[in-house]
């Protein structure tokens, strides 16, 4: 794929378009701030999920806080090591009185919400834990999006690759209690919406927009009229649908004008042999969207927390990931294979980071300098299903807020503190995040 994108040019074009568009009311603040001239580059935030923990001895860097060498699994991040923060030793400290399901099921919700599962009977793991509902609180990407995503065509993009179905093990983003956000797993669908119609002539575009807005109006009115008629408990469903329709309306009114780019042929989204192609395509879409100012927040879920029993044939072996993670500590063959898988995850993260680093923000720095990518997983290690000593990695400067190139060794602090640090970096003035948070505030040493 050739990158033919010029962010300076396109950002300006975006603003010009909006300046003449009567329908661009929600975007006026951005326009004004850009005219001010001295505004900093937009901050961006991405959650990045991969399943089933890591192999700790091959993940852990060597050295001290500011003088360290990356581990075998993290080696792919070498190219952006000066923007890497390795965070070792945090625990997901679960409230033992909350509904406990299978660790692979609840871990993805715990990870970025820092909160327990809702009580309920919807999900019952076959092997462990009691029944529970969906996650009970907003996830960090959505909390951040509420802060820095209001002036963009999309408040956030939820993308995934082979994430599985409507199940807590397959969701990392939550709009609020019991409101999981499904990721789009088909790059072709996202691409078609965001960039696919860029080539159409102005008349066609205007006609399409008018048609779609007329449909949006009908749907909104019908939702509004149902809202008061359905049972109390169902009103949230109507409101969520209104939110979804509102997102389409925002998209239609944004009239952004991004440089075209090639996504290449999109493989069938469920083809496990093509997972790497699909991940890179989703990353390309996310990066191009951020570069063009369509969104500042994204989440990328690679495969699923609940039983990623899918092969990674493109890595040269057909072993099933989840089955292999159960191998014993002394099974060197299995651990070598898992190290290969986890290194590939880091490669995908590095692909994202390097792409962001390849694009300058007009206001200063590369996009990576102004972004935080937070990489997490639902359990610490596959064969112990533990939430102790979780492997976290941050990449990016967060717009000058993050002390980068650091290797932190914590000792059982709550991962909620890391979520607080990320929120602080993104401009949220909070000192607690999530129902598991004990109020300890942000982690020491992460932020400038």
């Amino acid at each position, binding site marked *: 794929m050739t990158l033919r994108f010029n962010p300076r040019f396109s950002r300006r074009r975006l603003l010009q378009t909006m300046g003449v568009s009567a329908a661009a009311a929600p975007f006026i603040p951005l326009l004004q701030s850009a005219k001010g001239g001295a505004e900093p580059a937009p901050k961006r935030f991405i959650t990045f999920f991969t399943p089933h923990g890591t192999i700790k001895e091959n993940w852990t860097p060597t050295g001290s806080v500011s003088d360290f060498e990356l581990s075998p699994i993290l080696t792919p991040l070498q190219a952006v090591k000066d923007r890497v923060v390795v965070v070792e030793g945090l625990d997901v400290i679960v409230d033992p009185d909350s509904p406990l399901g299978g660790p692979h099921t609840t871990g993805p919700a715990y990870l970025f919400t820092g909160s327990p599962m809702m009580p309920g009977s919807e999900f019952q793991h*076959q*092997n462990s834990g009691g029944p529970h509902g969906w996650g009970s609180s907003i996830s960090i990407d959505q909390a951040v999006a509420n802060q820095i995503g209001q002036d963009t065509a999309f408040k956030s993009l939820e993308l995934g690759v082979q994430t599985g179905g409507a199940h807590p093990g397959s969701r990392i983003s939550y709009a609020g209690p019991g409101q999981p956000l499904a990721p789009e797993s088909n790059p072709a669908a996202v691409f078609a919406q965001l960039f696919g119609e860029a080539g159409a002539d102005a008349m066609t575009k205007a006609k399409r927009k008018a048609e779609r807005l007329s449909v949006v109006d009908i749907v909104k009115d019908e939702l509004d009229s149902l809202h008061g008629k359905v049972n109390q408990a169902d009103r949230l469903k*109507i409101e969520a649908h209104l939110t979804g329709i509102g997102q389409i309306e925002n998209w239609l009114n944004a009239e952004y004008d991004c440089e075209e780019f090639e996504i290449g042929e999109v493989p069938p989204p469920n083809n496990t042999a093509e997972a790497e192609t699909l991940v890179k395509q989703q990353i390309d879409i996310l990066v191009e969207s951020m570069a063009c100012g369509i969104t500042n927040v994204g989440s990328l879920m690679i495969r699923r927390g609940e039983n990623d029993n899918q092969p990674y044939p493109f890595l040269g072996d057909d072993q099933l990931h989840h089955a292999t993670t159960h191998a014993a500590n002394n099974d060197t063959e299995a651990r070598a294979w898992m190290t290969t898988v986890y290194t590939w995850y880091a490669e995908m993260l590095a692909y994202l980071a390097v792409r962001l680093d390849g694009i300058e923000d007009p206001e200063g720095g590369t996009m990576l300098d102004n972004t935080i990518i937070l990489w997490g997983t639902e359990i610490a290690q596959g064969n112990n299903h533990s939430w102790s000593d979780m492997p976290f990695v941050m990449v990016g400067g967060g717009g000058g807020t993050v002390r980068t190139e650091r290797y932190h060794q914590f000792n059982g602090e709550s991962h909620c503190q890391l979520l607080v640090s990320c929120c602080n970096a993104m401009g949220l003035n909070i000192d607690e995040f999530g129902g598991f948070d004990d109020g300890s505030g942000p982690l020491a040493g992460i932020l400038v």
Partner: protein
Amino acid sequence: MPGSDDESGTSGGGSGTEQGDDLGEDETGSSDGADEGTDDGEPSSCLNEPSVAEAPLRRFTRRQYANAVRDLMGIAADTQGLDDDEKAGPFDANVTAPVSGVTVEQYRALAEAVGLEAMAKVEDLVACDPAEATCADSFIVDFGRRAYRRPLTAEQSARYLALMDDADTFEDGVRMVVTAMLQSPNFLYVVETSLPDPGSDNIAVLDGYELASRLSLFLWNSIPDPELLDAARDGALDTPEGLRDEALRLLTDTRARDAVASFHTQWLGVDELEHTTKSTELFPEWSVSMRAAMENEMKHFAQAVVLQGDGKLETLLSADFSYIEDPLFELYGVDKPSGHTVGDPVAMDPTQRAGLLTHAGFLAAHAHPDQSGPIQRGVAVRTNLLCTPPPPPPPDVDAIPPSPDPMATTREIFEQHTADPACAGCHVLIDGIGLGFEGYDAIGAYRATENGPPVDQTGAVVGSDVDGEFDGAVELANMLATSEDVRSCVARQWFRYAFGRIEDPQGDACSLEVLDAAFAESDYNVRELMVALVQTDAFRYRYAN
């Protein structure tokens, strides 16, 4: 309730108000005593007033969406791009999580694609001459009634007419109307807004159109046809008898096959085969076509028994015949009869196979990639057939399945569970059943030996009305086929399937009592159970707040 004693097997399900008194008399003669709360003196759950638990707002499943578009326009909508469905119990139902923005966008893109296809076949969709001034209006009224499953309001019609007026051509107008209606909440959700009578305790009688949608979604997994909507309009669905008559009509239509197939494949987890992987080393024959053949077997078998056959639960659970296609002949070790065509019944080896629980699909869906799955199979029987899901293990248990060992049998490996007193309490419930399936490997093929010695297929059912030892899944299946606990559980599973929700032990007590009685009266005929279901309080009323 009029004339229940001369209305064949379907009379057990009637309106709740009169049911309580009838039941005792109707059921006293039933030999099985399914009718707790009647002849033995327990009070009936059915009071004078109808009772029903709150039902959550349902959004179409992917399958319902596709079927609806098929029935509206004869168009095959590609719903692969829609987000996966949630489940209620084992059944597809979008009732808990609110819709995601991504899904709303998927609805938009799909509606636009279907709209374009509709534009290309306007002559099939429009009964009138587009040159006539009233044609747009009559298209909107007719199409809208079917898509919304009730007549459009004047305001709704006017908005769609405005869309058509703004369009360049009639065909373009049809495209716009289709595109918009398929994104309407009145299409995508099962909207029920009937209000209770003042002072009637939040219980609302569903109107005819709401009942028509419930009927067609339950029995066709799709939208009502015009005839059913007419019945709704004419008040024909306002009585239990009217609902029964329409249910009987719907069950004779080929669309009923979808409901019966969907129930059984979801109930027994065979719909999950799609996400099941098997070791390519141990099972090189495992393939997409084998998986599809397994799913088809269960669909064909269930349809044949329930819709064309004797309808008996006992037959479903113990039949010595099935409906198989390649490559399952080889997997089952059955010779393909000469002149066999797909859809013909095939005699199975009665020492190896008996009904649904010995279908390769069920066995493969409840097994590991590289070994059988005694725990999964035991849990599935307890959860889905006995409705007694075992409690989860304590949180500190390492619930990781042991690796296969070429020197040991699966039974030996898993016997740890029952040896350890901390585990035995629950695992005797699970493993006693699950190890009885040891005659079948990870893809459901029969095996007489495992790693050398003959397979020990003995097991024991504990904690049910048919407790006892058995030797192999055929014996187990025959025990379960006449179990009261299984019958009661199957009735509850159909309840969950019909409503997309788990039954409420209090609010739905009367409906369940009526259902159990009707099932017993029909000698456990699933077809009759389905007909009885549509006459319950839970079907006819809603809790409004």
